[in-house]
């Protein structure tokens, strides 16, 4: 197992790679919903609206001052920290992103498996600065919403204004979803993303399926890692 202890301000922080070195089956937060037949394999089908999970991504929470973190994130990830509240910056191919969560908190999402190495590089880069990095990859998952009815589906689910006036491309908000909370993101013109907590994932799936029944909604997830 790879692990690391970082000296900072005379103390240290202990982190380790949570992924096993051997191949071991993993279950995304949508696993239980899939077991019950609520989630299908990705089929590439196009209805009025579609929800697709992007499981097993690397999710890191960055805490610290914007100026401090910005330089490190740009250097190590090639994306600048969103300058304004509720900003979402996505790289060219859409696979890595940095999102404002609060004045001292950002969410970084990268392809699965990159997160530990990225955390190490960021920690090295940041050195003695006061910051925190927390790996939350097992605790949440990303789902994409697309299709003509995606906006209406969201209007049934979140109180936030999901019209492009309220949620233009490049914006992301933490908000109420049905009776739980999600991070709602608008990474591009074609759709929306939700970051949902593992323990609430099945509730969110059931809510979406119910709200999307009239649009023929399907929830899909890749069948294996």
């Amino acid at each position: 197992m790879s692990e690391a202890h970082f000296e900072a301000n005379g103390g240290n922080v202990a982190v380790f790679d949570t992924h096993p070195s051997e191949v071991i089956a993993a279950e995304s937060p949508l696993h239980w919903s899939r077991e019950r037949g609520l989630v299908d394999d990705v089929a590439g089908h196009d209805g009025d609206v579609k929800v697709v999970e992007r499981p097993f991504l690397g999710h890191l929470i960055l805490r610290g001052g914007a100026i401090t973190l910005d330089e490190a994130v740009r250097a190590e990830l090639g994306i600048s920290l969103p300058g304004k509240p509720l900003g979402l910056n996505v790289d060219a191919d859409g696979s890595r992103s940095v999102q404002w969560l609060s004045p001292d908190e950002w969410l970084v999402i990268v392809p699965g498996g990159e997160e530990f190495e990225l955390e190490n590089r960021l920690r090295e880069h940041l050195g003695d600065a006061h910051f925190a990095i927390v790996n939350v990859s097992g605790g949440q998952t990303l789902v994409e919403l697309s299709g003509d009815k995606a906006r209406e589906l969201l209007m049934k689910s979140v109180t936030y204004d999901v019209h492009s006036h309220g949620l233009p491309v490049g914006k992301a908000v933490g908000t109420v979803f049905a009776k739980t909370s999600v991070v709602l993101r608008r990474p591009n013109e074609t759709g929306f993303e939700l970051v949902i907590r593992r323990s609430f994932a099945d509730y969110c799936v059931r809510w979406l399926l119910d709200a999307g029944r009239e649009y023929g909604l399907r929830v899909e997830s890749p069948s294996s890692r």
Partner: protein
Amino acid sequence: MFYIFCPYCDERREEEEFHPSGQAHLVRPTDPESVSDEAWGDYLFFRDNPRGIHHEMWVHRLGCRKFFNITRDTTTYEILETYPMGEQPTITAETARVRREQGVQTADGGWQTVGAQPENSTLNEETSS
């Protein structure tokens, strides 16, 4: 259902994202051990309940998780301003009374003024969002 301006998210959000945390500007005595039992009891248990201008602390629980303050009129439920922790209100019961006496409305044209500063500029200046 309030529509509350979060000074950190820099926009208005539905009340259900927030949670009230009681009276604003309470300060824990820095040396509790030297405070009398009575004074400590006051700090623990006694709160203002004014009719009219009130300063409350809220937390953007399901958004940015930050605490901030609200100046609210408890009779109209109007939120007159919201401001980050560490800052002082620009509208108080005193200034509101002066405004009323001078026939000047507070924060007309919206519900909340934003970006409240420790030093208020002029009393009669209309600040609206």
